[in-house]
């Protein structure tokens, strides 16, 4: 458990996390690839370094700590706990070879808090205070609003599930929404007899989807007004105070986002009580949609203004969907974040 390779800035951040009640967490650099691949799919292969072991099979050089922390917490059987960690993570840089593919990540994760708005605000305030000397700008968002909006669409469960599946792929999400907003063109499709049935997907699977496509063709388009509401929601980018009032107006016609709006309101209150002024905190409804899947509520990032060439110095958010994917429906809620101290040093400041 040596920490000698880290600079004093890293130590200071870790002390801040320790003072917030976080236990020390450590895990190996080589991680089993199957869990990560199952959760994140092929996309992670483009980012992580994959290697082979004759006995253990496919392994990955730790791309981050989130999944091992969640697994360790679930295995511990504890309800609520907090963890801090620091160590090297490894990411392939295929397009931008000037960025390091190995760097230090310092993290803080909170599990099992029952008051999620308070926990979100506490984590954000912790990061904000720790990063204050670096003079960064914060960005926030909330994937829960978009989830609520999709849940409220007047359409089939099948279409809602298709949209939910692509929350984190904005382009495909938009294409699906546009497709569902129009009448479905009829496709005259029949099972074909002259081509042999090869592969695992059977002729029965094909007929099942043909039946679904026939059903789909009868589904009325999503009303234009509802598509408009989602478009308006996704375009929101203003101070948190203004965003909240704007989204409240939208909630008049979108009952299913009201729970998320209530949480947003409670979070802003909790942030204000910790000295974070909602009038000065930016909010973007689309923020965090292109990062890792499974962030499903509050999301935040800290970045250097005027340095769009650099990745965010810190990122975090709520990932209840990830703990549920690994631990089932009764898994504890989770919120946390990571900091890249190397970027702070590169920006010429020490926190």
């Amino acid at each position, binding site marked *: 458990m040596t920490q000698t390779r880290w600079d004093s800035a890293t130590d200071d951040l870790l002390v801040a996390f320790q003072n917030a009640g976080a236990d020390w967490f450590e895990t190996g650099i080589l991680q089993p690839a199957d869990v990560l691949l199952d959760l994140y799919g*092929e996309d992670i292969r483009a980012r992580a370094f994959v290697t082979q072991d004759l006995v253990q099979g496919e392994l990955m050089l730790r791309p981050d700590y989130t999944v091992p922390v969640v697994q360790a917490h679930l295995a511990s059987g504890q309800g609520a706990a907090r963890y801090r960690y620091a160590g090297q993570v490894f990411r392939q840089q295929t397009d931008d*070879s000037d960025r390091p593919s190995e760097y230090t990540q310092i993290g803080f994760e909170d599990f099992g808090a029952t008051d999620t708005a308070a926990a979100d605000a506490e984590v954000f305030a912790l990061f904000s205070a720790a990063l204050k000397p670096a003079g960064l700008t914060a960005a926030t968002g909330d994937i829960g609003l978009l989830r609520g909006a999709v849940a409220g669409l007047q359409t089939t469960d099948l279409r809602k599930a298709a949209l939910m599946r692509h929350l984190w792929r904005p382009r495909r999400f938009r294409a699906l929404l546009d497709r569902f907003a129009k009448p479905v063109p009829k496709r005259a499709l029949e099972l074909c007899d002259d081509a042999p*049935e*090869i592969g695992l*997907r059977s002729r029965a699977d094909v007929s099942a989807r043909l039946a679904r496509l026939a059903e789909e063709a009868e589904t009325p388009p999503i009303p234009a007004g509802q598509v408009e509401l989602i478009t308006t929601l996704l375009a929101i980018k203003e101070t948190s105070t203004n965003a909240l009032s704007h989204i409240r107006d939208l909630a008049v016609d979108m009952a299913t986002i009201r729970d998320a709006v209530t949480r947003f309101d409670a979070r802003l209150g909790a942030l204000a009580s910790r000295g974070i002024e909602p009038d000065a905190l930016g909010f973007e409804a689309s923020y965090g949609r292109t990062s890792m899947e499974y962030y499903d509520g509050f999301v935040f990032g800290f970045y250097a203004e005027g340095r769009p060439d650099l990745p965010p110095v810190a990122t975090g958010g709520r990932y209840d969907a990830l703990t549920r994917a690994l631990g089932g429906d009764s898994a504890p809620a989770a919120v946390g974040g990571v900091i890249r101290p190397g970027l702070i040093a590169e920006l010429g400041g020490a926190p």
Partner: protein
Amino acid sequence: MTLKIGLPSKGRLMDKTFTWFTDRGVEMRPSGDGREYKAHAEIDGLEIVLLSAGEIPRELGAGRIHLGVTGTDVVRDRLAAWETQVLEIKALGFGHADLVIAVPRFWVDVDTMHDLDAVAAACRQTHGQRLRIATKYHRLVREFLQAEGVADYRLVDSQGATEGTVRNLTAEAIADITSTGETLRANHLKPLSDGVILKSQATLFKSRRAQWTGAERQALAALVDQIGA
């Protein structure tokens, strides 16, 4: 000072490359009995290095050869930010091949990438398994699927006879090079209408990483002049 040019070391691609240069007045012929991996060019300062077509991108990227002939597909798959490492000098007009995504022909419900994504979702839901796509062009295929927003798939490595993987139950779909589509048809597969990842052909590349002194630049100018690039 010699200008090193990497050329494919065997097969039709080698024959066509040699013919192409010879037709343009840069006579090239294999040495000895044709089994020896050595060839000679009738132009001053040009040295032929025979390599596997798949290794030519790596050699260009490392700057060990100044020029190389290979497919645009392998260059884009094997070299990160390929434009920063090599420059396309001339498309040679042969070795045409498209990298396409293909599925079994009896999948009448699947014609587009949208359909493939929907089938991948159903596959994971009903079989608890990601839709497997067999290919040897991992990076190109992954980038394409990512840009298209396809989820719930998995790439499985296939270094040859990729069209057979579906019948052999090791994949549900494939991504491979096709020129006429005959091999696909013979294996009861069909390309997706919007699943063309890349159109490739044999191309003469220049390495940006090799050492370019006056002599090499002069030899390149002479060669370019001769072949009309």
